[in-house]
């Protein structure tokens, strides 16, 4: 069949896709001629010359410079973010450590433990000792029970902890520990 070109391709396109004729969709109409043909082929569902699929052809023929610029920005930001994440995250150290673990219960009866461990992360230090337990989530261990007291979800209770007096930014799976760290658990009420 004869392949329509130029304005004839646009007309043919609209004939087969009348719903694209309105103004909003003309934005969607590709600017370059090649696109129009691709759309036309797709619209009338005939096979493409030389076996090129419409989407691929559209991608490669696109001269949309903004897309290229934003793609480059995305890649740069992604690499930068990955580097920042790798380089600036605290790194774990091996060897034996001694931690002080203070626990503030809801009723005010506090408890304190001294834990000796070779673990690199907080979870590895406290879970085997039975000090913390909880449920697995896609973010790691969700601590529900500390020193025997379980947070009541329905009362908006939750266990939070500080490391050397600063609010922890990591879960127990990712919290790096160092010798002499003071970990303080507190049962909080209200989100």
């Amino acid at each position, binding site marked *: 069949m004869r392949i329509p070109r130029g304005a004839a391709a646009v007309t043919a396109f609209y004939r087969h896709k009348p719903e694209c004729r309105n103004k*909003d969709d003309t*934005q969607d109409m590709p600017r370059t001629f090649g696109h129009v043909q691709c759309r036309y082929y797709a619209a009338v569902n005939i096979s493409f010359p030389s076996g090129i699929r419409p989407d691929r052809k559209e991608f490669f023929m696109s001269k949309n410079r903004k897309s290229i610029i934003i793609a480059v920005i*995305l890649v740069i930001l*992604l690499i930068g*973010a*990955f580097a920042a994440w790798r380089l600036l995250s605290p790194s774990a150290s091996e060897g034996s450590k001694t931690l002080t673990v203070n626990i503030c219960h809801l009723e005010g009866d506090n408890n304190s433990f001294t834990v000796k461990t070779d673990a690199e992360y907080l979870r590895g230090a406290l879970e085997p000792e039975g000090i913390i337990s909880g449920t697995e989530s*896609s973010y790691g261990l969700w601590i529900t029970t500390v020193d025997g007291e379980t947070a009541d979800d329905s009362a908006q209770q939750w266990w939070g902890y500080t490391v050397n007096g*600063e609010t922890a930014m990591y879960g127990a799976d990712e919290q790096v520990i160092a010798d002499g760290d003071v970990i303080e658990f507190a049962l909080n009420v209200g*989100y």
Partner: protein
Amino acid sequence: MSDTDSKTNRTAGKITVRETAELAVITALIIAGKEALNALPNIHPVMLILMLCVKKYGSRAFFPAAAFSLVELLLYGLSIWTAPYLYIWIIAVAAALTFRKNSSVIFWSCFAGIYGLCFGLLSSLPMLVTAGIRGAFSYWIAGIGFDIIHCISNFAIVLVLYRPLWSIMCRIKDR
């Protein structure tokens, strides 16, 4: 259709009953999409639907963004972790509005990817108040892993679903 046309939208007239209903359904879709995929960290079609809404409804996309944020805050309560929802989707819609004329799938995929990557940075702003600059910085660094997931998933979701959803949206809006 003419009063939501890209050219006349800036001086948008009264919002019609029909549009209100459409925007409400879109809001419901966003919430359903977000909650259904809750088990997967940072993988959801929120950005995609909001972007399509921006392209189709222009500045009226602020309504679903605000309604979605409000429902999420009602669901999860206002806390230091949810406070970013007070502004983050409004910023997303405002940013998308500036590129409204663009209709390249690659462009919008990258846009959603970049926004996903910046999500943690924007989310750490409330931490400036409660934990100071150091706290906010470490909060951001701690979350970059999840930002990268957010970036890649946003990119992939938009790349795959942009065209099919756009044609559905055209069919609904222009009927």
